């Protein structure tokens, strides 16, 4: 990426975690956004409370690329521990802004980057409290960046005012720190730098939001009344944001009592158990977890599959296996989720790729869970869940009503309609159910994870057992017709296809343009669900080669495609990114260039579907 373009640059802030840097960095990110510029913000943080290196990357892109770029044009090197590494991460011709209060070892300096030293610690000596010094030092470097990158100072002070509304003293102290940093930079350097920000009106009505917050809000709108969860990075903020929104929108005005219940369970087993219990009893209920939690939930998920109980799970994936790297991202729970639990068990997965889709898929997940009477997994990841994204605003149709599925109420039971729990009345594999307590004489049944026949009775008879599990397989085929269809994102009519999902989508958009500029055209399909839809199968069928891009080592999506769709292995070429950082356009371009041979690029046969 060339350095020196207006509104196309990456600032990387290197800090010590636990020093309040993330709020200063979020202020910086939001300031660019308020100047009408598209941004991407990636918080690359350690699994630690205080003292380890942490980075916050802000990409400003007038072209609208909001995937991670990787390299940095300007590094704010505030952490002596990682100074050398941070200096090495700057593009040639870039800049390092550092705290010159104490002298640094010049032997570690590069001569192809410019070092900008300002005495940030010296600027905050009037604060006697050590914690305050650290906090205001961060605000000082934001002030210096305002000068270096031409950030509108009024935008920054406006954001400070919003953040500390009603606390005049704090506002004044922050604005003063901003001004100190700005003035010092103006006095010491030629400002702004060759690359900097200029106000535009590109972001329109887009919002800045994390995927987790979007999921939580989606659950509120979908009518979820119960949540049961156990704290685990990176999913925790879903339950917390749900609680926050419920406290605002779900308290009965007359009584002051809650129209929701949130249980922080003793572990993930209890969390999913409570979800299943509440769903059995007719509430919309969900849990949020990550890989280790999913492993713990497995036994109960088999029960929900076999006893046919709706459940909604948000799996915010992180880097595995085992504890792995809890604060790094991956898409590595696909197989664990798709086949969670022993025996012949299969689950429905949804793959959102933006906060807006997180919001929408919450409703889709509840509708599908109750329609199909089975667990639905919303497969997010740490990058989507915890980072703020520039997203289309959330939209809502007030005419929406939940699809509660095939539930027989009192009136239907009273009318004499016969009811057997697992009977395939409609030929779609989906039986009818009743909620406990509905009717005095009709509709009661026994829910069990042990062998049962189509009437819901205990059985150890092989034919009756098979009849029921074969129906479950047919129900899964019905699921493939109900889940969201894949999105065809590019269709230049190439014999080469590329299939991807989730957070690969944003860098992929940039990579496809980059490849096109190099004369390589790809038809691109963004997967949105498992089981695989008709559109996915057709797409693979009518391309000679399909690149399957995923953020895990073992090509889990490709495995699912081979196992579930019977695709010829040689047709699917894996592109795998699994280091734990968000995937970049450069990586995608490089990987595809490695694989594309002249013979693959024969003229199109009109393959795009």
């Amino acid at each position, binding site marked *: 990426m060339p350095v020196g373009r207006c509104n196309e640059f990456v600032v990387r802030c290197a800090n010590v975690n636990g020093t309040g840097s993330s709020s200063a960095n979020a202020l910086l990110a939001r300031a660019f956004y308020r100047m009408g510029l598209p941004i991407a913000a990636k918080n690359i943080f350690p699994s630690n409370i205080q003292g380890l290196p942490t980075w916050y990357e802000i990409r400003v892109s007038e072209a609208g690329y909001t995937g991670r770029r990787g390299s940095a044009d300007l590094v704010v090197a505030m952490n002596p521990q990682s100074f050398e590494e941070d200096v090495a991460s700057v593009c040639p011709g870039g800049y390092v802004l550092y705290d010159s209060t104490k002298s640094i070892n010049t032997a570690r300096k590069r001569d192809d980057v410019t070092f900008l030293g300002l005495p940030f610690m010296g600027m905050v000596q009037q604060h006697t409290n050590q914690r305050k010094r650290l906090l205001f030092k961060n605000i000082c470097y934001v002030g210096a960046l305002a000068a270096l990158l031409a950030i509108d100072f009024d935008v920054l002070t406006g954001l400070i005012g919003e953040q500390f509304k009603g606390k005049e003293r704090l506002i004044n102290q922050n604005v003063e720190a901003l001004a100190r940093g700005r003035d010092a930079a103006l006095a010491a350097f030629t400002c702004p730098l060759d690359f900097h920000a200029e106000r535009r009106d590109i972001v329109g009505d887009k919002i800045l939001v994390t995927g987790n917050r979007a999921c939580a809000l989606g659950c509120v*709108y979908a009518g979820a009344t119960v949540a049961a969860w156990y704290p685990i990075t990176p999913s925790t903020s879903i339950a917390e944001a749900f609680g926050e929104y419920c406290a605002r929108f779900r308290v009965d005005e007359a009584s002051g009592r809650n*129209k929701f219940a949130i249980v922080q369970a003793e572990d993930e087993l209890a969390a999913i158990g409570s979800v299943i219990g509440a769903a059995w009893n007719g509430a919309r209920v969900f849990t949020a977890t990550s890989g280790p939690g999913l492993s713990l939930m497995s036994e109960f998920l088999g029960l929900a599959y076999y006893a046919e109980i709706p459940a909604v799970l948000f799996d915010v994936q992180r880097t595995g296996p085992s504890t792995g790297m809890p604060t790094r991202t991956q898409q590595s729970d696909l197989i664990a989720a798709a086949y969670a639990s022993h025996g012949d068990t299969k689950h429905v997965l949804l793959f959102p790729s933006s906060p807006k889709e997180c919001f929408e898929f919450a409703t889709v997940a509840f509708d599908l869970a109750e329609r199909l009477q089975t667990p639905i997994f919303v497969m997010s990841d740490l990058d989507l869940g915890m980072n703020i994204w520039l997203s289309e605003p959330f939209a809502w149709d007030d005419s929406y009503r939940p699809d509660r599925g095939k539930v027989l109420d009192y009136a239907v039971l009273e009318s004499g309609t016969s009811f057997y729990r697992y009977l395939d009345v409609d030929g779609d594999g989906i039986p009818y159910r009743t909620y406990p307590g509905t009717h005095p004489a009709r509709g009661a049944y026994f829910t069990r994870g042990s062998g049962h026949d189509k009437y819901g009775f205990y059985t150890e008879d092989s034919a009756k057992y098979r009849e029921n599990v074969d129906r479950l397989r047919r129900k899964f085929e019905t699921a493939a017709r109900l889940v969201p269809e894949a999105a065809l994102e590019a269709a230049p009519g190439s014999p080469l296809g590329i299939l991807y999902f989730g957070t690969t989508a944003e860098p992929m958009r940039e990579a496809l343009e980059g490849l096109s500029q190099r004369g390589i055209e790809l038809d691109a399909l963004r997967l949105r669900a498992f089981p695989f839809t008709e559109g996915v199968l057709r797409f693979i069928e009518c391309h000679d080669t399909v690149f399957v891009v995923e953020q895990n080592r073992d090509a889990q999506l490709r495995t699912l495609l081979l196992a579930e769709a019977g695709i010829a292995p040689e047709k699917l070429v894996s592109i795998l990114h699994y280091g734990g950082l968000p995937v970049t356009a450069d990586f995608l371009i490089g990987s595809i260039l490695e694989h594309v041979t002249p013979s693959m690029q024969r003229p199109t046969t009109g393959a795009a579907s």
Partner: protein
Amino acid sequence: MTYIAKPAVRNPALPKNSLGLTRRDYEGKISTLCAGCGHDSISAALIQACFDLDLPPHRLAKLSGIGCSAKTPTYFLGAAHGFNGVHGRMPSLATGANLANRDLVYIGISGDGDTASIGLGQFVHAIRRGVNMLYMVENNGTYGLTKGQFSATADVGSKSKRGEVNIYPPIDLVRLALDLGAGFVARSFSGDKDQLVPLIRGALTYPGFALIDCFSPCVTFNNHEGSTKSYTYIRGHDLPIVDLIPPRQEITVDYEPGARQEVTLHDGSRCVLRKLAGDHDLNDRAAALALIEEHRRRGELVTGLIFLDPEGQDMHMRMNTVETPLNALRYEALCPGAETLASINAELR
């Protein structure tokens, strides 16, 4: 006796409760447990108690884990929904079910393996939350379905059918429940219907977590000489302390002056207790613990109602949820709508 079907014809002279239902209306399927199993007596006691309380059978929900105990919900209250979940996890299912609909009466059936071993964590947290339910432990000190291994409630020195001697001290679920703040704590014996039925009635009406740790001898694997959970051992060591009469039946017996204790619960209902022995203060948690310990040292069992907290709070009170069951709230009362969403979008700019 699984091959003997229940007669379809009913005796018209069977007594009816205020709902016009007979005891038969509270029954379930024929038991498939071993003949003489203590669990079947507990099922019979549950049927009797629900009949006595005039509970509409369909307004109860039965939940269980895995094991012999877990099978029993099939054998009572056939008109109620039942849920046989996974091993040791009945408490979380009951927690979720109760969150969704606070208006049903919840009966959780568990065993000593299901509660004291694999499910100890969930048992503890259901008590801590105060899930409004009857939690019945059908305690036989052994793993029946897997043929006679010791459970965590087996006493030190108790002999298994194969002659092994248990070397570990038992987990006392009553002491644990007392320590964790359970509001209604009782211990009983499946063979003592006169005591068990009133206890169940009390537990079902108690507005909070109610534990009955009920010894229930396993006739096949733990009813031999040397076992401390056999019929003969328990009968020989029985020491009833108190009996509980639920509100509707309180005035049927004239008690001796001083032998009657009235307790008003926080929901306004009253319990009248008939003291059978000693001067145990039912509302004193520390006294209850001391009582258990004192009798344990003497090698005696304490059965009956051991503790009752008139101020006990259930999970919904603690969570301040609305009176209407959450599963019955209209969607319109739950969705903030498009206009609110526009303002949420504005907050995110």
